[in-house]
């Protein structure tokens, strides 16, 4: 063991300091399996003090590091820095405080997203952000990447639900950002920190806002003979002044795959399915449901189903949530993007994606958050066929540029990470990026924290096909 590593050995007992190649393999990649890098070591801190000591060690030896939760990042955000340190935070997984009266929960970064809602459930409360990875992804990772989900249009992303964070900066200093109030004075430092992709430090305590659970849901599934009609239906819902909690569209390929995987009972001949969900106070939802019914009836849907109870609602969502891993069954490998376009450009974007799909000879399935224009094209490829991964990456890149040219964004919720950093200049000017880099260096002068992510022209490991993540094969996580 080199002398620096033996110093780490004074902070961690051997079972929490992983250095053997066999121990490191599970940490070599995250849910973006096309990238892989071998870290120097993995440490598993259990206390804030251990995190501070570890950051101090990294600073002294100029060793870059990445903080990691469950490794479900779809943008390669938790990919190790080659030869750097992985700080695995899964053991800092305590619920420190739950205050139902004030409607807040304080958790450690390794606490699982869905567990927050489970802990709050007895009080009629829940934690709103619902990325599909929520059964396994951690609050620390959610915070770093400002995770989204199906309900962002109405309720916002992770950033809108984090009230405060205790943060270990890359200099080893500890700061408290935000508070327990929904409001603040002075610059919104916490707002800057959330979504900074691990480049500004490590949150060791996070204060989350809890919401009362909606009293009633109204979930509608509508089948269309064209994607365009489904898209127009979304526009009509918006024009009617309704604000549904979720509006999701799946195309034919995604429907077929989901049906084969979980038998949600979707109409198999549909070219597009639209899921619209209203939620809130019962009398209000009932009134809105009547208006929604009129809008959907006029939208050219050839079949409309309304969930009559919680089971039927769950079934509708099951197919949607399983669509991604299900599409994976149609193909040995796939990439998923999460670019955003203005809602009115959805139709144009989908046509263009179809054209690109034909041009590249790669199938693309589409499942997307239609309410906020957040696409999720799944690009199917076979990593064993020479050159296909590169082709898939190139197609993905064209889709990202398409999103920007239509006035949108390269990422709605997965973050830039490793995967999309080359496309940052499509969205931001040199001056924009230079300022972001200046902020980064002011906070982390040696650029140790998650080095190589988010900013273009920082070093990247080579692409290699590795197939789906083991957790994904097991059906535990989904890509969306």
């Amino acid at each position, binding site marked *: 063991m080199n002398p620096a590593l033996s110093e780490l050995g004074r902070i961690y007992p051997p079972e929490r300091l992983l250095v053997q190649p066999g121990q490191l393999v599970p940490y070599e990649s995250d849910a973006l399996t096309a990238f892989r890098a071998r870290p120097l070591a993995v440490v598993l801190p259990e206390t804030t003090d251990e995190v501070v000591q570890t950051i101090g060690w990294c600073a002294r030896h100029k060793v870059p590091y990445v903080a990691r939760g469950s490794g479900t990042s779809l943008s390669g955000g938790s990919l190790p820095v080659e030869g750097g340190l992985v700080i695995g935070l899964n053991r800092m997984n305590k619920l420190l405080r739950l205050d139902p009266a004030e409607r807040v929960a304080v958790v450690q970064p390794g606490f699982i997203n869905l567990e927050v809602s489970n802990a709050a459930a007895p009080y009629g409360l829940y934690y709103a952000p619902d990325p599909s990875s929520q059964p396994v992804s951690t609050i620390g990772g959610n915070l770093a990447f400002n995770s989204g989900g199906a309900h962002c249009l109405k309720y916002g992303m992770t950033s809108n639900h984090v009230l405060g964070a205790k943060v270990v900066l890359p200099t080893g200093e500890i700061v408290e950002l935000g508070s327990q109030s929904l*409001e603040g004075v002075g610059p919104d430092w916490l707002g800057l920190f959330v979504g900074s992709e691990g480049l500004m430090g490590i949150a060791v305590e996070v204060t989350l806002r809890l919401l009362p659970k909606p009293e009633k849901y109204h979930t509608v599934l509508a089948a269309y003979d064209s994607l365009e009609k489904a898209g127009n239906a979304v526009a009509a819902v918006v024009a009617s002044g309704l604000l549904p909690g979720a509006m999701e569209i799946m195309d034919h390929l995604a429907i077929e795959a989901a049906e084969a995987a979980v038998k949600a009972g979707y109409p198999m001949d549909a070219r597009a399915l639209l899921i619209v969900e209203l939620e809130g106070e019962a009398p209000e939802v009932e009134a809105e449901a009547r208006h929604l019914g009129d809008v959907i009836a006029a939208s050219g849907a050839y079949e409309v189903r309304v969930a009559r109870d919680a089971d039927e609602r769950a079934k509708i969502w099951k197919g949607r949530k399983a669509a991604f891993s299900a599409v994976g069954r149609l193909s040995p490998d796939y990439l998923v993007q999460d670019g955003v376009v203005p809602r009115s450009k959805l139709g144009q974007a989908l046509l263009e994606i179809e054209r690109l799909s034909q041009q590249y000879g790669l199938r693309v399935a589409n499942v997307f958050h239609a309410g*906020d224009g957040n696409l999720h094209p799944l690009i199917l490829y076979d990593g064993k066929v020479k050159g296909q991964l590169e082709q898939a990456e190139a197609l993905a890149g064209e889709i990202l540029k398409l999103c920007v040219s239509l006035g949108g964004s390269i990422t709605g919720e997965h973050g830039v990470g490793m995967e999309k950093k080359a496309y940052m200049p499509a969205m931001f000017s040199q001056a924009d990026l230079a300022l972001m880099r200046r902020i980064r260096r002011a906070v982390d002068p040696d650029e140790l924290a998650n080095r190589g992510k988010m900013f273009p022209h920082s070093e990247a490991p080579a692409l290699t096909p590795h197939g789906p993540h083991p957790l994904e094969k097991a059906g535990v996580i989904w890509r969306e």
Partner: protein
Amino acid sequence: MNEGLLIRPSEVAEVQEAVRAHPKSLPRGGGTKAALSTPREGQAVLDMTGLSGVLEYDPAEYVLVALAGTPLAEVEALLARHGQYLPFDPPLAELGATLGGTVAAGLSGPMRQRYGGVRDFILGVRFVDGEGEVVRGGGKVVKNAAGFDLPKLMVGSLGRLGVLVELAFKVFPFPKATATLKVTFDRLEEALEAMYKLASSPLEFYALDLETNPATLTLRLGGQPEALPSRLERLRAFLGHPPDTHTLLLEGEKERDYWRFVGRLEWGHGYLVKVPIQPSRIAGLERELPAGMRRYISAGNLLYLNWPDSIEKLDNLLKSQGLRGLVLRGDAEPAVSETLKSPLIGVDWEHSFARRVTAALDPHNRFSPNP
């Protein structure tokens, strides 16, 4: 007032020029928050009202992009014509406040209760940094996770991190119908208890405000007109059917007028101060505050306070309560504002992260009021 320089740029390039040409500058919008827009010795004032106008608005997108000097009133009127609104409900619109000033001060109003405050609705920002560079953060779509979240950072930044020139917001449809129920209580404790229960219930409010003298909850409902009567009935039942002498129902034009009046925050002499708070701290603070005008907004998360005495006394009081405040406007005479050391009072939460980020955005200290 010092005899400082006043510059009124009408293009972004002129803002850049002005920032580079002056060692110290202070952007000003409508000037409705004098404590934030009154220059100190040596500060050039950048009057931003020349950079005004809505640049992009397609109601179907729920996105509005405008220059920072655009008056809130203009934006709200445009949105209202399409049945939409700014869900963070910025105050002081009728007095001439601008989008930029609202973001820089970080101000939201009663309707923030339903969907969130200004930080939750800002999507994109363009500003001139301390090097005189024009930079952009965020985007113009309702969902975006690319790059550092500079739009949120600028909320509450008080001109200290850059001069805002363009802003993008998420907007929402305004409810088809609204109604407001005012309920008075015999004691503050009872009102607080009811506030807690309402905030934890599945009942949804566009506003959930508490006033203290007398203890009153003001509850604004919004949604489909046909559902409002039954929702009001449920609300009364939830509150244990308070007697008619303790309730007042506002509807129609009268209701809208009431909320317009609230948004003016005009409470006569004294300082107007924003205090972020949480419900559990209200009772303790109330024991120390003198009688006077104030309003706790969004289920006890935000206090707008009229303070009749010296700011030093309020500073001490807030410190003793572990709270922080932002002085928005002084007494009738503008000179009073100038005597403030800083509009930020109460507990000092200055930290290394703040210092580092500020230095990156404003390396030459052009936006700091201090030498």
